[in-house]
């Protein structure tokens, strides 16, 4: 420890004011402030082991070789804080960079650069830093203001903002509204109402206590949104439950199960599993290779219902094609297993209820109730209750089954939705 100006011996108590130069503190020592408030060290403060600072401490940099450093006031370093084991600061820690091998406890943390902690971080109030990387667990009761966050285990914050990327290996929970860039949670993610971000992806569970606004949502397991969900693109490989309405400006892709109590409104819809919603209104295309259940109806520019699929509730579209093609799902999403897949519900008839459209094409073995369209084309084995059209009814030499005689009319009844 060459160049030291002040040394505090092992087990002793030193009353200090301003230290010009470096400070060396041996194991078991205690430092108190001459003015009762703070000790200022113009150089570096070096602690060999366990030590107690019963005031605030300000220095150029701090190094703690081992043991626990306790500071009852604030701890401020112009440059870095480097603690091998544990640091406990009742007040605020502020530094250019913070590195702790074991545990960091603080009232609040303000760091211009990176905070890196091998084990656990606990902050009673706010945490502000450029990046935070924690191997174990982080709990911040106040708000965070970060660019990036990476936590191996569990992360709990009191709202704030994570402008860049948050990667959480285990559980993530925010107790207050959070603004985020990208959140990737492998386990469980809990957000309150009023959160807003660019992208959220979860492998396990996502719970949102109210409304969520997020450009891209990817759900690997289970997602429940207790309010409305507003997004650009939503991809569900597991189960999505939205208690409010769901609106999206790009596509909604459901490979598992989706239930939206309110209205589903967006551009394109792709269902490889099951979707249940009160009403679906789309400005683009709906492609169904599974089941869609609506109370009020599904409306889109074009509706393609794959062979063996089932739709409950009226279908309203420009062009509606039912059961005429085997649906190829691989085109939907490049990230879906990276494999070509073809979904065909073998042995099941394609079944829909009422259809209102400009053009309706019924493939082989399709069952529907009433069809109202300008032109209708019937495939072999089609079964329908009623066909009402203004243009053409086309049917090949094959048999079709229509309960009531087809009716050509001057104008069709008003379409729902």
């Amino acid at each position: 420890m060459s160049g030291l100006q002040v040394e505090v011996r092992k087990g002793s108590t030193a009353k200090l004011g301003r230290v010009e130069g470096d400070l060396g503190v041996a194991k078991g020592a205690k430092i108190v402030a001459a003015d009762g408030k703070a000790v200022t060290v113009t150089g570096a403060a070096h602690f060999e082991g366990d030590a107690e600072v019963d005031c605030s401490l300000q220095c150029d940099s701090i190094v703690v070789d081992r043991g626990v450093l306790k500071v009852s006031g604030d701890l401020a370093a112009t440059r870095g804080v480097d603690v091998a084991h544990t640091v406990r600061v009742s007040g605020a820690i502020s530094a250019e960079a913070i590195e702790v091998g074991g545990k960091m406890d603080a009232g609040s943390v303000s760091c211009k650069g990176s905070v890196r902690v091998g084990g656990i971080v606990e902050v009673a109030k706010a945490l502000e830093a450029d990046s935070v990387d924690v191997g174990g667990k982080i709990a911040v009761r106040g708000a965070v203001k970060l660019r990036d966050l990476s936590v191996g285990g569990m992360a709990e914050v009191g709202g704030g903002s994570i402008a860049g990327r948050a990667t959480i290996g285990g559980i993530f929970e925010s107790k207050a509204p959070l603004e985020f860039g990208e959140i990737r949670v492998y386990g469980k993610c809990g957000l309150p109402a009023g959160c807003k971000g660019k992208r959220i992806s979860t492998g396990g569970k996502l719970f949102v206590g109210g409304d969520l606004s997020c450009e891209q949502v990817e759900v690997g397991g289970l997602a429940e949104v207790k309010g409305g969900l507003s997004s650009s693109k939503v991809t569900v490989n597991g189960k999505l439950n939205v208690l409010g309405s769901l609106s999206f400006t790009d596509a909604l892709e459901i490979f598992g199960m989706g239930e939206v109590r309110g209205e589903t409104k967006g551009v394109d819809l792709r269902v490889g599993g099951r979707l249940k919603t009160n009403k679906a209104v789309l400005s683009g295309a709906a492609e169904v290779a599974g089941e869609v259940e609506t109370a009020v109806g599904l409306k889109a520019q074009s509706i393609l219902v794959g062979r063996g699929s089932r739709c409950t509730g009226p279908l309203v579209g420009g062009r509606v094609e039912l059961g005429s093609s085997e649906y190829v799902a691989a085109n939907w999403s490049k990230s879906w297993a990276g494999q070509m897949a073809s979904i065909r519900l073998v042995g099941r008839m394609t079944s829909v209820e009422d259809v209102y459209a400009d053009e309706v094409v019924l493939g082989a073995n399709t069952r529907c109730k009433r069809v109202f369209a300008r032109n209708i084309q019937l495939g072999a084995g089609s079964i329908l209750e009623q066909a009402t059209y203004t243009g053409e009814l086309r049917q090949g030499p094959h048999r079709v089954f229509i309960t009531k005689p087809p009716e050509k009319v001057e104008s069709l009844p008003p379409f729902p939705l």
Partner: protein
Amino acid sequence: MAGGRTKRSKADLYATILEVIRTYPEGERITRISYGVGVPVDRLKAMVEKLSSAALVRKIAADGDEKGAYYYSVTPRGLEFLDTYRKMKGFLEAFGEGS
């Protein structure tokens, strides 16, 4: 690492160790890693040696004054283990059997 007191499996321990070492991309010594993991150095050493022999951790001898000391960092394969472990935990979470 977690708040509960359930006994950690070997995979949990290895993942915990890798998560701590991951925070030191430039490598770190065993003592400091033990503070993050919360396991005594001698016990940790055995586990880290196993991870090293499985190529999940890289072991580099320190030079200069630190004769006999080693620095440990996570390999790409170790990151792959962590990614797979996290994904599996996510699946179990979705089944209601996680954390």
